[in-house]
């Protein structure tokens, strides 16, 4: 699942590398993630960076606590997940609201574009609404050239005292999952 989306570290930069550069420029030091094929390269880059602690999570809401703890200690965190994971985070987002903790989430979308698996559709079509219900500011990326600047804008917003932010990376951008190989 990871293999086809993973390029060697020496490959020329693409939008995933530019998004990683945006995380670095914002001094992100902890990255919680539940793996998604669409973020495989980003996860690989985070894991390879000695200045970033990449933390695999058993469920996405763990990343909200991780981010709050990081901020209590003076570090910035980001959270990578698939759209289905947003549903797992709803109650835990109250931690960010109650303590005004900063966090930017990068969410790869499923269930919205050439989706093979209909079970992804219920959460995929409600991802934005679920985040907005908890007052997360939501950005969306449709084209590769917008990805890094959108992530940078979201990071700026949240770490300059604004609300938690989420960047939805569209399924069209990621590419539909190939099920029959």
């Amino acid at each position, binding site marked *: 699942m990871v293999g086809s989306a993973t390029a060697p570290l020496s490959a020329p930069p693409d939008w995933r590398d530019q998004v990683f550069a945006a995380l670095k420029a914002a001094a992100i*030091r*902890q990255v919680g993630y539940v793996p998604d094929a669409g973020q495989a390269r980003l996860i690989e880059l985070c894991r390879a960076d000695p200045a970033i*602690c990449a*933390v*695999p*999570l*058993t*469920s996405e*809401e*763990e*990343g*909200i*606590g*991780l*981010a*709050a*703890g*990081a*901020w*209590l*200690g*003076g*570090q910035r*965190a980001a959270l990578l997940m698939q759209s289905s994971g947003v549903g797992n985070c709803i*109650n*835990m987002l*109250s*931690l960010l609201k*109650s*303590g*005004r*903790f900063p966090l930017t989430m990068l969410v790869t979308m499923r269930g919205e574009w050439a989706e093979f698996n209909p079970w992804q559709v219920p959460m995929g079509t409600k991802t934005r609404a679920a985040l907005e219900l908890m007052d997360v500011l939501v950005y969306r990326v449709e084209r590769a050239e917008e990805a890094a600047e959108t992530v940078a804008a979201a990071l700026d917003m949240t770490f300059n005292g604004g609300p938690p932010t989420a960047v939805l990376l569209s399924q069209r951008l990621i590419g539909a999952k190939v099920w029959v190989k």
Partner: protein
Amino acid sequence: MSTSAGSNDSRLANGLERRTAMRLILEQRGDLLLVTGLGSTTYDAAAVTDDDRNFYLWGAMGAAAMIGLGLAIARPDRRVLVVTGDGEMLMGLGALATVAVQCPPNLAIAVFDNGHYGETGMQPSHTDLGVSLAGVAHSCGIARTYDIADEAGLAAFRGDLHQASETLFARVAIRADEPPRVLPSRDGVYLKTRFRRAIGAE
């Protein structure tokens, strides 16, 4: 191990008194940073002393261990202790796997286990019905786990957590009683900011 839905009477009778346990675990605290879980452990910590370096949870049930992990990673120069209840830990059991994988040397997690949901009317929790949190933690890969039932055991754990070189997990048997509630601030922004100021992160 209890096999019925009834209470485990020996634990109820023989566990530590929770305020005593919190006081002992915070003795000679030094520069220890403390995170407490939703419910009674927050009251216990506030009853000992409402220290600026305490971060109390009033919600986010299941997050205490993960907050401790993020904090421990961010501040490798400081010892971090999470004290939470069995119900709070059960809601975020996956965090034990996540913590075990990172295993920061400056993190210790203590679960005050009275086998009950004290906030909601003392319904039996899974630990009263047979689940061993120390066993779960150990199976996740936290090699140094403690199952503590007396003050001597707690004192040993306290000594270890100030000098450990790997993550520690302790299950502390607590009597299922409810001492008078001591309620610290519920203002999350205030609690966050005073904590960050106290450790030079603000």
